[in-house]
């Protein structure tokens, strides 16, 4: 399965390997994602970001909720946690507070983070919890059959909106900014270089960082809307995306087939939760305040 097929008019060095492989649990390949699904592409970007940032992989943890995107935790060859639906952020919060030296990355779907987990999202952002959140937004609850999510745009046909969605949807980047995130960016799976650079950037940024990645779901989103396959979605992203760094997030709402504004929208510094906690405790208790020693030896 893993051997490289040599039907190539030149030599491949014997020690050549796919740079993503050390970051994956290769015994679990092939993965469950459909042909043309974009989640694997985001994983490539994430591994390139980890490589380029020279992060100490023993200090990186990946936390996912439930969904197709949630499977990332199961495939990542890092300390990774596949938690319950919607609870990736509270789990990650506990992990971070108990092990402040860990770099905690939350990798989950739009439904997981903004429907069942929406309340956790706004409060983690408000507190500026030092977490890096990567949201694969396929505009639907994919794993459960393509139901309407809080992100599904107007007029889209879904399993639960056979006549088209009519309820207003969330603009995730505006929501993240309003709730207090330190860093907010949006890319699509077409923008592999920019996405991995953003991911690398947040690995060295303190505070609550949010990256939204639009990603094809040919099986459960596009099929009902006659939007073709994964490659068609990639071509669509290429065609309609406009890079506008610093654009006001309120102008970046997504529609079914309109322009997709991508770029880095917010990059600001505010004290994170742990800093605020330490500051307040030291102010109130002085020398009586001691950092709890809760670091694990793993």
């Amino acid at each position, binding site marked *: 399965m893993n051997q490289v097929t040599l039907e190539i008019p030149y030599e491949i060095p014997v020690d050549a390997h796919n740079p993503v492989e050390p970051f994956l649990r290769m015994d679990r390949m092939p993965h469950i994602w459909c042909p043309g699904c974009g989640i694997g*592409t985001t*994983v490539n970007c994430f591994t390139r970001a980890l490589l380029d940032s020279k992060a100490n992989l023993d200090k990186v943890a990946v936390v996912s909720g439930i969904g197709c995107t949630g499977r990332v935790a199961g495939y990542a060859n890092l300390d990774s946690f596949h938690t319950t639906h919607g609870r990736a952020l509270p789990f990650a919060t506990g992990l971070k507070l108990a092990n402040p030296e860990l770099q905690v990355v939350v990798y989950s779907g739009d439904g997981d983070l903004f429907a069942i987990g929406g309340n956790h999202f706004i409060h983690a952002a408000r507190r500026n919890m030092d977490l890096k959140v990567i949201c694969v937004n396929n505009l639907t609850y994919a794993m459960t059959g393509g139901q309407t999510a809080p992100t599904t745009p107007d007029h889209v046909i879904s399993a639960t909106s056979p006549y088209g969605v009519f309820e207003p949807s969330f603009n995730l980047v505006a929501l993240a900014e309003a709730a207090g995130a330190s860093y907010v960016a949006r890319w699509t799976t077409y923008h592999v270089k920019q996405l991995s650079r953003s991911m690398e950037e947040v690995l060295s940024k303190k505070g609550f960082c949010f990256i939204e990645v639009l990603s094809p779901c040919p099986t459960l989103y596009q099929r009902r809307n006659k939007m073709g396959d994964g490659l068609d979605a*990639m071509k669509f992203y290429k065609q309609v995306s406009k890079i506008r760094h610093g654009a006001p997030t309120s102008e970046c709402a997504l529609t079914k087939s309109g322009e997709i504004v991508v770029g880095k929208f917010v990059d600001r510094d505010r004290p994170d939760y742990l800093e605020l906690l330490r500051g307040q405790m030291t102010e109130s208790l002085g020398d009586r305040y001691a950092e709890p020693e809760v670091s694990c030896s793993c």
Partner: protein
Amino acid sequence: MAKGFVAITVERCKGCGFCVEFCPTHVLALSSAFNSKGYHAPHVVAGEKCSGCDLCGMYCPDFAIFGARYAR
């Protein structure tokens, strides 16, 4: 001689065509042959043009292809 090479794990490919579409120098095409799951994997049609940029590897959602530069 090509600056780089591309390696394909045919059996892991699901035939999405991302690598073919986004290779900047059009090194790849989907083969008419099937792998054992019934997908058309890419094959190399212009190997001498490969720069080893690994964009195919960045795009491939199935971790089935990568490119690299030859060490000089």
